[in-house]
């Protein structure tokens, strides 16, 4: 351990603003612009324990730093993974890295899906679009690994095309084969070799006509969230039954720097997971 210890506050040995060094130990190309990175401390293992829905700050020193959801489940005891879409300076840089390259990681930040409280014993409906499967994958695997604690699980996942579906291998080989789990995949436009559903997620959601005896966990681009929420409400869901995450526009991660402050909440500390009725109480700045 470093000598970063306050003499009169012996507890403060680890400021969460100080990152750990992370080594990339595996890279999977999920889609043309999404890669999943396995990042471990140099000595191996996990950086910290986390709960589904929590995030971490990944930084390429000298380039930039940003918040990403931890896509691996806490039940994975060996390592942590991040699915990252190429969409800016930092992510471009991350995508150019190789196994063995180092980055820095700090976290875990934010709250998590209430997997041990509100969601327990519930039937669960996961709705995700595109890269937004990343935060949900953590919850889904957590739920599947603690299968006895939860009711029926439905997963509705859509992307622009079949090539943009993230974690397809795991979906097909694990999720689809787990008992009492239904996976519904959809893509925006018809495509050769695709015999699944074609259509936008909100439309497919309505078609599937789930009953309201379940809690929905919704994650995706803002426009998809908006229409899915409408669809859910039309289907009879109340906002209390729907959880979602807000965009990760954060800097410090500890609810102090002020950037992600919306009303009296700090998204990085009090979020990113919110129940939809809680979001309604926030001023419209998200």
């Amino acid at each position, binding site marked *: 351990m470093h000598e970063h210890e306050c003499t009169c506050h012996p507890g403060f040995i680890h400021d969460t603003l100080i990152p750990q060094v992370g080594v990339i130990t595996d890279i999977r190309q999920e889609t043309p612009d999404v890669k999943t990175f396995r990042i471990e401390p140099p000595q191996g293992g996990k950086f910290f324990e986390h709960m589904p829905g929590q995030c971490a700050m990944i930084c390429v020193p000298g380039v930039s730093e940003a918040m990403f959801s931890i896509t691996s489940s806490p039940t994975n005891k060996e390592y942590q993974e991040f699915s990252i879409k190429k969409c800016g300076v930092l992510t471009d840089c991350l995508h150019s890295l190789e196994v063995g390259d180092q980055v820095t990681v700090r976290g875990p930040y934010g709250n998590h899906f209430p997997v041990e409280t509100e969601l327990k014993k519930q039937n669960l409906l996961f709705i995700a679009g595109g890269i937004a499967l990343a935060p949900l994958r953590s919850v889904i695997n957590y739920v599947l690994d603690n299968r006895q604690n939860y009711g029926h699980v439905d997963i509705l996942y859509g992307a622009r095309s079949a090539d943009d579906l993230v974690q397809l291998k795991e979906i097909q080989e694990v999720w689809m084969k787990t008992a009492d789990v239904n996976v519904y995949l959809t893509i925006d436009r018809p495509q050769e070799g695709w015999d699944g559903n074609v259509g936008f997620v909100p439309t497919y959601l309505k078609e599937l006509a789930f009953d309201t005896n379940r809690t929905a966990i919704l994650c995706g681009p803002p426009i998809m969230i908006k229409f899915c929420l409408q669809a859910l409400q039309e289907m009879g869901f109340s906002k209390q039954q729907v959880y979602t995450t807000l965009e990760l*526009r954060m800097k410090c991660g500890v609810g102090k720097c002020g950037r992600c402050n919306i009303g009296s909440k700090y998204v990085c500390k009090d979020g990113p997971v919110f129940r939809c009725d809680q979001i309604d109480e926030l001023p419209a700045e998200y």
Partner: protein
Amino acid sequence: MKKIAISNLPKLYAAIAKAQSLILPVKTAGKTNFSLWTEACDVDLQTLKTVKSAKDAFFPQSETLYHCHRDGKNITITPEDLQSESFVVFGIKGCDVRGIAVLDKVFLAEPVDSFYAARRCHGTIVSLACGAPEESCFCKVFGIDCAEPEGDVVTWLTEDYLYWKPVTEKGEKLTALVADLLEDSDDAAVTAQKEAIGKIVEKLPYAALSLEGWNGEALNEKFNSPLWETLYKPCLACGTCTFVCPTCQCYDIKDYNTGNGVQRYRCWDSCMYSDFTMMAHGNNRTSQLQRFRQRFMHKLVYFPANNDGMYSCVGCGRCVDKCPSHLNIVKVIKAFGKEGK
């Protein structure tokens, strides 16, 4: 109660500085700010308000968090050492002392900011009562007694003496350190000064400012008020109010490439700046109206909502004095007050 003759103050400073670093109001190029005491510096206890508040002492405008070195593929992180030496901040006014209490709510809340915490536990606050409050002061509104501020040691300055009263254990320790220079005293002069100050405070133009209606519950009503549309207009989007404010604590985290590695530091930021919330993937507040509103909503609504009604304003009046467009929190509070009537 102790006292020390004004003429002996340099000796007092020297004695403290011998043991610890001493931060106090120093005049440089015509303006007074908290600064490290040196033999040659021009200590200025007469100026009521330093331009910047004393928050620098605990939450400096910029501070290094860690250094990051790269050797081939290997990265090494070397965190900056935490404050481990004691220091004294001398001459803080009541409003600024309360400002530190506001910062405590932020930085000492979980997860604790160890850089701040280390400074807090190594710093001794010697506050100074306000001898002559000015027109922009309204600390009374926030329940602050500028005649008897909080702190580890409280002092009063009269024409001849500095009166010295240790309040906390830290204060006692400091008092012991300079005991040779202090003499015992009665309270008479201090009592008289407090009374005089009290009278002045009553006459201050903003003494009767009402905070009625400003609390956590008022969130959406205040947020959606059309008044902001007019109020924000003159705002230049500069950070003057933020940077002179004793309670503003927004910060940015930045990297500096030194050529030998990357130095990560954090520095004050202003929610009034147009790029404050501008991020790679979006912007929470795109207009100056939103940013302007954020600052006041945060101080008067959001912060109290999270901190048992404590406002993130201490009435120091620096923003009142310094805003290039003569905008300030008082005008905002009053504007809503008028609307209420």
